């Protein structure tokens, strides 16, 4: 009896969620432009022009690579991770609890999967903008010797994607007891410092180097370096970076879909 309206394909529906998020982002255009352009300028200036003057010895396995060239891919990846983390934490809990737009979306034909897919796409777009601007600033600072350098954008985005398990965790939080602040201080901040970002992982005592091997940020930074001034490592390791980052991202994404679906179906 029912005249079911034409069903747009699943991916098309996910895009409507992305569209919504982009429209909501317009309210913060000024802030976003300022931070997207300001952050790379400040960081590359501080590290590349300031700190670099103190660092005269070689930092990587390749002689002739400046500290700026070494640190820039890691800073780009860190920026991508921070943008993604914002959405994986506040973006998720905002939609489920504080400004429960996911609940509203779910009362339309949208499914939990489409909602999460749309959000991930939005995060991808945000990371793309951030890393592209970062890359342009890197070019301006002369921090990209290789022609493959542009691929560091992909490396950075993979790094952000690999933190998707955080989104699945956020979707399980019922009450905000400062979990995000704890996560930020005890996991994210240490990772940004000890993932071979501002100094090579080999500088860490051997018993601490596992932090880097587990850290998506180390894999993303090393991957970015391969494109910016590499190759400096065996090809299998480069492939391993990509596989590791993709695997974490896909697992987190799928877990997030499941958790959100369970939470919306009360």
């Amino acid at each position, binding site marked *: 009896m029912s005249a079911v309206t034409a*069903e747009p394909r699943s991916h098309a529906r996910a895009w409507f969620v992305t569209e919504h998020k982009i*429209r*909501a982002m317009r309210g913060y255009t000024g802030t976003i432009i300022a931070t997207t352009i300001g952050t790379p300028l400040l960081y590359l200036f501080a590290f590349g022009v300031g700190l670099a003057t103190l660092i005269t010895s070689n930092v990587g396995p390749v002689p002739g690579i400046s500290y700026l060239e070494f640190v820039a891919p890691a800073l780009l990846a860190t920026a991508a991770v921070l943008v993604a983390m914002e959405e994986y934490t506040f973006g998720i809990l905002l939609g489920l609890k504080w400004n429960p737009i996911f609940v509203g979306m779910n009362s*339309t*034909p*949208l499914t939990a999967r489409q909602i999460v897919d749309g959000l991930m796409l939005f995060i991808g777009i945000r990371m793309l903008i951030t890393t592209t601007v970062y890359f342009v600033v890197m070019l301006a600072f002369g921090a990209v010797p290789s022609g493959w350098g542009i691929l560091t954008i992909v490396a950075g985005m993979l790094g952000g994607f690999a933190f998707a398990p955080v989104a699945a965790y956020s979707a399980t939080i019922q009450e905000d007891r400062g979990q995000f602040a704890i996560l930020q201080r005890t996991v994210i901040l240490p990772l940004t410092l000890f993932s071979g970002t501002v100094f090579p992982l080999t500088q860490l005592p051997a018993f601490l180097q596992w932090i880097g091997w587990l850290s998506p940020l180390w894999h993303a930074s090393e991957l970015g370096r391969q494109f910016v001034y590499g190759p400096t490592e065996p090809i299998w390791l480069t492939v391993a970076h990509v596989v590791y980052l993709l695997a974490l991202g896909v697992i987190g994404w799928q877990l997030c879909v499941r958790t959100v679906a369970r939470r*919306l179906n*009360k």
Partner: protein
Amino acid sequence: MPAPVIVATDLVKKYKDFAAVDGITFEVAPGESFGLLGPNGAGKSTTMRMIGAVSTRSSGSLSILGLDPNEHGPAIRSQLGVVPQQDNLDTELRVRDNLLVYGRYFGLPRAQVAARADELLEFAQLSDRAKAKVDDLSGGMKRRLTIARALINEPRVLLLDEPTTGLDPQARHILWDRLYRLREQGTTLVLTTHYMDEAEQLADRLIVVDKGRIMAEGSPASLIREHSSREVLEVRFGSERNATAAADLAGIGDRLEVLPDRILLYAHSGEEALAEVTRRGLEPITSLVRRSSLEDVFLKLTGRSLIE
């Protein structure tokens, strides 16, 4: 008779051991305005979420627009309009933008959504607020915007969960007027409420729900006729004396309810009952004669008031 738009049979929703909805059965015909009346925690919202195809039932059968929500959630939801108990408008978007993004979820083309959004803002009397921030709207305006949003896909059934809870009387009347118009246009309405006046205003037919079960079913008028007297005499003797006075009132009218603050005497004629009270030498501090309402039906059926 046209096929019903909703058929629920022995519908159950359990959370661990607790049955929020404990075997309810009802049908809703197209164009009907159907109400679920009951106190907070009766299982009304849970029922609404199952009808809205977002909450999986624990047992029983359910058909919405001829489809099983377990199998065809998105197809069902594409034809529903949902006004949840708690507004979930996007406070990061402006008023009109809320309608635009929502319309897109149904896969409607941009131009169509934009035209429809303007019509609905007109309907919701919010045209002059189109560019306002959601947080700057009053409670009544937010509610009207949520209703406008629920209508963006021209739904066959509009689900309203406690549409006027928390609104001041004037805002409620504006909202009722809008819903009344929808009813006149033939939109099928399903609403929950714990306000008996709202149920009387808006529902052609309703079920009285308590603790997840149906206590009674019928039109507001027939429920009152069936479960209560024509009139009610309310007398107050002061909280100290209510109980002792009640003993002296025995036999007046059909039935008597002693509430903490007043005594209700159910009688065909309230004035005659009051005359009898005075004849017995009792002097209530205040007395009031009124028509029976759904509140009285609920009290009779459950021994409790709707609003506690």
